C-alpha cells in the first residue's frame, strides 16, 4: 500500500552550513488495514516523517533521498498540484493537538464537509449530508443538531472525534495519526482508540500511529518502528519486538515502562541525552548511551540487518549475535 524506501529528510539552515538529519534512511512498509506504530522520544523525527509522507514540510526541510511508493506511484517526485489531491483524499492526517484543529468561526458541519467539497467537487448540501453521516459514525449523539454548532460548544473528546471524522471524510486509504490522544484524559483516550480501531476495521484503513506511549502501541498496532535520532533502529511485528527486543534502545524503553503488580523492580531510566542531529557521531547514534557497546559501535554506523522474518534492527551486536544465542544479550 505505502512503502517508504531509504527516505531522508533534512533541515538545512539558511546559510546551508548546518544540516539536521531529522529523518535519515527510513524504510517502512504498510499494507491495507494494517497499523504501524512509530515510537521514539521527542526530536527523534516521528513528526517530520509524517509531514514528509504528505509533503507538507516547512520551508527549510527537504526530502534529500528515497522514495515513497503509494499505490504504484512515487510521491516524492509527484508535482505539488497532484499532491494536493492526495492530501486529505487518499492519505489523511490527524494532528497532534486536535483541540486546536478546528476553526473557531465555522460550524462543525462546514468543517467536516470541507475536504469533501474540496476533493469530490460536490455541492454544499450533498457534502453536509455526508458530514452529518460522518458525525454520526464517530458516535456523536444527535448529529443533525451537532453539525450546526460551533467547536466551542463541544467537549474535548467530541472535538477529537470530529477531527477523526474530518480525517476519514474522503475515505482515505492511509490515515496518519500524530499523537492524537496526548491531550485527552485516560478514559476518553481509551474510547477514542476503540473508535479509531473500529473505523479502521470498517474501512480497511491503513493507520500510521505516531506516539510515545508503548501501551497504546501494544493495544493498537501490528507493526512497530522505533526511531532514534532520525533513524529507525528497530522495525518489526509488535509481538516480536515486545517479546524479544533486539536493539538496546528498545530494550531500555521497554524497561522504562512501569508494570502492574511489580513493586520490587526500580524503573530504569536511559542515561544521557539524545545526540545533536546536526552533529551526529560517526558511529551508532545510540553508542554514547548504550550499556553494551563494542569497539565497532563508535566507528561505523550499523546497517539494517534482518534477524527474523520482518524483524530488522540497526545494531552491531545483533548483527554479530543473530546467529548465536539469542536476539539480545548484555543489558544489565
Amino acid at each position, binding site marked *: 500500500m505505502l512503502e517508504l524506501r531509504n527516505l531522508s529528510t533534512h533541515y538545512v539552515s539558511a546559510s546551508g552550513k548546518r544540516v539536521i538529519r531529522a529523518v535519515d534512511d527510513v524504510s517502512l512498509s504498510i499494507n491495507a488495514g494494517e497499523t504501524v506504530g512509530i515510537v521514539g522520544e521527542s526530536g527523534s523525527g516521528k513528526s517530520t516523517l509524517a509531514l514528509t509522507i*504528505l509533503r*507538507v514540510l516547512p*520551508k527549510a526541510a527537504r526530502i534529500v533521498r528515497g522514495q515513497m511508493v503509494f499505490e504504484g506511484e512515487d510521491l516524492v517526485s509527484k508535482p505539488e498540484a497532484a499532491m*494536493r*489531491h*492526495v*492530501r*486529505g*483524499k487518499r492519505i*489523511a*492526517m490527524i*494532528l*497532534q*493537538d*486536535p*483541540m*486546536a*484543529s*478546528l*476553526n*473557531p*468561526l*465555522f460550524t462543525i458541519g462546514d468543517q467536516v464537509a*470541507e*475536504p469533501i467539497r*474540496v*476533493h469530490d467537487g460536490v455541492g454544499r448540501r450533498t457534502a453536509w449530508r455526508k458530514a452529518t453521516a460522518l458525525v454520526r459514525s464517530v458516535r456523536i449523539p444527535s448529529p443533525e443538531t451537532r453539525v450546526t454548532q460551533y467547536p466551542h460548544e463541544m467537549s474535548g473528546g467530541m472535538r477529537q472525534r470530529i*477531527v477523526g471524522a*474530518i480525517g476519514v471524510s474522503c475515505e482515505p486509504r492511509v490515515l496518519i495519526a500524530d499523537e492524537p490522544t496526548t491531550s485527552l484524559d485516560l478514559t476518553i483516550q481509551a474510547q477514542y482508540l476503540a473508535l479509531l480501531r473500529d473505523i479502521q476495521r470498517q474501512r480497511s484503513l491503513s493507520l500510521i500511529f505516531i506516539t510515545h506511549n508503548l501501551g497504546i502501541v501494544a493495544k493498537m498496532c501490528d507493526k512497530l518502528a522505533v526511531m532514534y535520532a532520525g533513524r529507525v533502529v528497530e522495525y518489526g511485528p509488535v509481538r516480536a519486538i515486545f517479546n524479544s527486543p533486539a536493539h538496546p534502545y528498545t530494550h531500555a524503553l521497554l524497561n522504562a515502562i512501569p508494570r502492574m503488580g511489580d513493586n520490587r523492580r526500580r524503573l530504569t531510566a536511559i542515561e544521557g541525552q539524545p545526540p545533536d542531529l546536526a552533529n551526529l557521531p560517526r558511529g551508532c547514534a545510540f553508542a554514547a548511551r548504550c550499556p553494551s557497546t563494542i569497539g565497532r559501535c563508535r566507528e561505523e554506523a550499523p546497517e539494517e540487518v534482518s534477524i527474523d522474518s520482518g524483524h530488522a534492527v540497526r545494531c552491531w551486536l545483533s548483527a554479530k549475535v543473530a546467529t548465536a544465542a539469542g536476539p539480545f544479550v548484555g543489558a544489565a
Partner: protein
Amino acid sequence: MSSTTTTRLLRAQLPSRFGLLRPDFPVIPVAILASIAIMAVFADLLAPYNPEIGSLAARFKPPFWQAGGSTAHLLGTDQLGRDVLSRLIFGARVSMVVGFTAVIFAGVVGTTLGIISGYLGGWVDQVIMRITDAWLALPALTFAIFLAAIVGPSEMNIVIILGLAYWTRYARIVRAEVLSLKEREFVRLAIVAGCSKRTIMWRHVLPNVVNSAIVLASLMLGVVIVAEASLSFLGVGVPPPKPAWGLMLSDGKQGLMVGYWWLTILPGACIMLMVLSANLLGDWLRVKFDPQLRQL
C-alpha cells in the same frame, strides 16, 4: 483606556430591553452616527432648501435665536445666501459616503495585501512589506494633496486617494495577525486536508482577521473624515458648490473675524461629533472583539 472610561460615562442608563442595549453599549455615539446616517440618506426630504443655490439678498443671516435671524433659515445663511442647515444636512452625505467608502476601500486593499504578505511569506512578504514601509514614511495628508493635485478633485477621486493613503495600517496589522494564525492547528489541518493556499487564505484566515479589520476601520473612520475635511478645506477635496463640511469650514473662515461664527463653528462641530462618535464606537468594538479585554 481613558476613552473607554469616557464610553462608560457616555452610555445611557437605559433599561436593557434588547440584547443590543447591553450596559456597556455606546448608545450616544451610535445614536449620533445613526442620525448623521439618516440625514445623509434622507437629505432630500429633510433639507428645507437647495444646498447649492442661495439668494444674494439673504447673505450672512445669523441663526434664528440671534438678533437679525429668522426661522426661515434656522441656522442662518452663508456668504452666497445659501441655507447653512441644508448644507450641513447634505454635507453629512458627503462625509458619510466619502468616509465609509474610503475606509472600506483602504480596508479591502490593506487586508488583502496583509493576508497575502503574511500567509505566503518569503519574497512576496518582503516586497509588500517594503512597499508598506516606504508608504508609511510618506506623510499621508501631504501624499493625498499631491495625488489630488494630479488627478483633480471629485468625490470618487477623494475616495481613491484616501484609500491609497491609509491602506498601510490595515496591511501591517492584518499581516501580524496572519503570521500567528498560520501556525494555528486548524490552518495546518486545512493544509493536510489538501486545501489550496487560496482556499486557506480566504476561507480560514480571512474570517479570523475580519474582527481586527472592522475595529481598525471604525477607528480609521474618524481619521478619514478629518482627512476629507482637510482636503476640502485646502481646496483639493470635494469641488464646490457641493456642500462638504470641510469646504464650508474653509469658505467661512474669513467670516469668523467679523462675527459670522456659525459658518465655521457649526460644520466644525459636526465634524467633531462624527469623529468622536466613530472613535468611541471603535473603542467599544476593540474591547468587545479582544478576548483578553472581553468580560464574560
